[in-house]
């Protein structure tokens, strides 16, 4: 029982294909938990903008800290080979928060609606870009988030933050559930 080079090449192709599909499904399952966590963070933060505007700042801060801690815990509980240190997760959140703060400072003045739309659009671009390497579900999540954010920004003129709590936060939670089902 020996193989020809063509049979060996076919077998390697089968291995590559099965491995890619399995790795992709694992990636979706693993990322789904982070999507759901950050969906909850957005839901709390954006709902606070609309329902408790005087507490919106502290509420966002508390939600972001909870998100960073949650991300760190999720990353540490992941399988071997995928674990990031708590500092990497917290550092990533800090870098993104600083980037967003710096962008607002440079672009100031920006309206509440512009602020509310910017982060989801940034996330949508990041998800779509990640999807180019890791799988179509990321791209679908990114495009859906961008369309809903832009649609709301141009069509909804009051309670935009509440709308973003529902479609941004809720959308991320649904995207996380969808990814976990892969």
């Amino acid at each position, binding site marked *: 029982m020996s*193989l020809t080079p063509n049979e060996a090449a076919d077998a*390697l192709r089968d291995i590559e294909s099965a*491995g*890619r599909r399995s790795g992709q499904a*694992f990636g979706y399952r693993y990322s789904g938990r982070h999507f759901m966590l950050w969906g909850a963070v957005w839901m709390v933060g954006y709902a606070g903008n609309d329902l408790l505007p005087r507490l919106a700042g502290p509420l966002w801060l508390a939600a972001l800290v909870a998100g960073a801690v949650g991300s760190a815990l999720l990353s540490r509980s992941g399988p071997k080979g995928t674990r990031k240190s708590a500092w990497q997760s917290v550092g990533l959140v800090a870098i993104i928060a600083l980037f967003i703060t710096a962008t607002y400072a440079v672009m100031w003045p920006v309206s509440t609606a512009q602020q509310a739309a910017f982060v989801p659009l940034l996330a949508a671009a990041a998800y779509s870009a990640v999807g180019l390497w890791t799988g179509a579900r990321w791209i679908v999540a990114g495009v859906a988030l961008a369309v809903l954010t832009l649609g709301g920004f141009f069509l909804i003129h009051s309670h935009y933050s509440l709308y973003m709590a529902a479609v941004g936060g809720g959308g991320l939670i649904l995207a996380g559930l969808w990814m976990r089902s892969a």
Partner: protein
Amino acid sequence: MTDQPDAIIHQPIRLKIMAALKALPDGEQLEFVKLKDIAGATEGNLGAHITTLESARYATVQKDFAGKRPRTRVALTREGRRAFEDYVAYLRDIIDAKA
């Protein structure tokens, strides 16, 4: 380079099962339903191949419940991981020998 491929792995469905499990981090399990989809096998056929891999100590099977739903998950053993790497090296040697 060994002259003969590993007979346990050298079967199209089992090869796909091993490749799917090898793509996961060490110790990570894959659900039977997902494995069935990736391997393109029927339920009975897949079960028989998994039993073969389990008998060879290349894979472990864990059965439990997710809520009320019965769940079967399969993982690669260290021995299985090594055997699969040897098998891939065997395939690459064949291709390299031609070049």
